[in-house]
C-alpha cells in the first residue's frame, strides 16, 4: 500500500539528513503505529507522503504508483483537530469534497452526514465545532479524513491532547473503525501503550536520523480488548520498547 524506497529528507537550513535512506513498506489493510520520541522526524514522514514536503532523494509509492502525480492519495489527520470554528461541523467534514470539486451542495451534505453517522456523530452536523467535546471533535476530524479519499490514512498523534479515559475509548473506537472500513492506517504516537494496543506490528524509529523502522510484531490477536495489555508477553514488549526509546533520549 505504502512503500518508501531509499527516502532522504533534509530540512532547509540544517546540515544533516533527518531521514536518511529510509526504506519500508506497509501492506494494504494493516494498522501500524510508528513509535518514536518527540522530534525524531516521525511527522516528517507523514508530511512527505501527504505532499507537504518533497523528499531530497528516493521515492515514495502509494498503491503502487509514485506520489506527486495524484495528490489526494491519502487522508492526513494532524495532531490538532483543526476544525474551522466558523464552519458548522458538516461543512468542516465536507471540506475535502469542496476542495476536490464536482459535488453539489446537497451531495456534499449527504456524504458528510453519512461520514458523521459512521463516526457516531449523528445529528451534530449543524452544530459549531465549539459545541463538541474533545473526543467528538477528534471523531469529526476523523470523518473529514475519511472523505479526503484514498485507502491510506495517516493519523499524527490524533489522541495526544485528550484526557486518559477519552483517549482509551477513542483507541477502541479507532480499532472498530479500522475493522469496518478496511483502510490502511498508519498512526504516529510516542505513547508505548497506545502503540502496542493499536498495532499489528509497531514500527519503531529507534535512531536519529531515521535510517530504518524496526518492525516489532505485537503478540496479541485482533480484535483486542484492553485486557490483553495485562498479558505477560505484552507487558514484556512494553518494557522492551520503553527501554529502546529511553536509550535514544539518554545516550
Amino acid at each position, binding site marked *: 500500500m505504502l512503500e518508501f524506497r531509499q527516502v532522504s529528507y533534509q530540512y532547509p537550513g540544517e546540515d544533516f539528513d533527518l531521514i536518511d535512506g529510509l526504506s519500508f513498506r506497509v501492506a494494504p489493510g494493516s494498522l501500524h503505529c510508528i513509535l518514536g520520541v518527540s522530534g525524531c522526524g516521525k511527522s516528517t514522514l507523514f508530511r512527505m507522503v501527504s505532499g*507537504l514536503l518533497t523528499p531530497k532523494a528516493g521515492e515514495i509509492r502509494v498503491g503502487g504508483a509514485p506520489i506527486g502525480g495524484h*495528490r489526494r492519495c491519502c487522508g492526513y489527520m494532524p495532531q490538532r483537530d483543526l476544525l474551522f470554528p466558523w464552519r458548522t461541523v458538516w461543512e468542516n467534514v465536507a*471540506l475535502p469534497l*469542496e476542495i476536490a470539486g464536482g459535488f453539489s451542495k446537497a451531495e456534499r451534505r449527504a456524504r458528510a452526514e453519512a461520514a458523521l453517522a459512521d463516526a457516531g456523530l449523528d445529528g451534530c452536523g449543524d452544530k*459549531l465545532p465549539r459545541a463538541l467535546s474533545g473526543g467528538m471533535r477528534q471523531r469529526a476530524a476523523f470523518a473529514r479524513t475519511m472523505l479526503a479519499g484514498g485507502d491510506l490514512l495517516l493519523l499524527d498523534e490524533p489522541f495526544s491532547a485528550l484526557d486518559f479515559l477519552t483517549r482509551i475509548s477513542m483507541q477502541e473506537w479507532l480499532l472498530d473503525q479500522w475493522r469496518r472500513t478496511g483502510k490502511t492506517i498508519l498512526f504516529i504516537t510516542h505513547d508505548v501503550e497506545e502503540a502496542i494496543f493499536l498495532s499489528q506490528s509497531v514500527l519503531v524509529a529507534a535512531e536519529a536520523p531515521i535510517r530504518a523502522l524496526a518492525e516489532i510484531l505485537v503478540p496479541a490477536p485482533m480484535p483486542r480488548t484492553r485486557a490483553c495489555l495485562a498479558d505477560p508477553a505484552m507487558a514484556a514488549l512494553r518494557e522492551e520498547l520503553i527501554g529502546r526509546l529511553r536509550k535514544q533520549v539518554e545516550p
Partner: protein
Amino acid sequence: MKKACRGNLPALLFLFALLILWQLGAMELDAAYILPTPVQILQKLWELRVPLFTVHLPATMGVTAAGLAISVALGLLLSVAMDASPLVRRMIYPVVVASQTIPTTAIAPLFVLWFGYGIWSKVLVTILITFFPVAITVYDGLRSANQEMIELLRTYGAGRWAAFRRVKIPCALPYFFSALKMAIPMSVIGAAIGEWLGAQSGLGYFSRRMMTQLDGAGVFAPIVLLSAAAMLAAGLAALAERRLIRWRGESL
C-alpha cells in the same frame, strides 16, 4: 436591549456627570464665545437645524463616505498584496508607515491648491489618515491565519486561492472589523480637517465660520453632530460584526 442599556449605564452616568460639571463651570465662567454650556450648544443646534442637516451634514457625510470607501478598498488591496508577496511587502510596508509621519494638517492646504475647493481635496485628506489602520490591521489579520489549516487544505489538493478564501479571509475578518471601527471615526475627523482648511460647505467649514464670528456654541454644534454621526456609523459596523462573526474569542 435591556442588557445593552445596563452595560452602558456606567458610561452614560459618567458622561452625564461630566456634562453637569461642564455646565456649571461654563455658567461660572460666563464667556459663551469661548466656552458655551452644553445647553447653549443644544439650543444652537436646534436653531441652525435647517442649514446643518440639509447642507453641511450631507456634504461632510459625502466626503466621509467617499474617503472611507476608497481607504478600505486601498487598505484591503495593499494588505492582500503584502500578504501574497514578500517582495511587495518589503517595498510597500516602509512607505505605508512613512506616509503616517506626514503631518496631514500641514500639507492639506496644498491639496486644496492641487484639487480645488471641491470634494476631492477633502477626500484625499481622509484617505491619507484612514487607509493606514486598514492596511496594517488587515495585513496582520492575514498573517495571523492558521498555517496548519492551510496545510491541511493543501493535503486535500487546494491551491492558493482556495486556501486563501477558506482560511485567510475568515481569519482576517475580525481584524477587518477592528480596522473598520477605527477607520470610521478617523475618516470623519479627516473630512472635518479637510473642510476646516478650505471648503464651501460641510460641518468642518461651518464650525470654522462660526469661529471667525466668535460664536462658541456655533463652533461646537456641528462638532456634536459629527461625533453623533461617527458613533452611529461605528455602531452599525459593530452590529454587522456581531452578525457575521460567531466564532470570535476562540483560539485557532
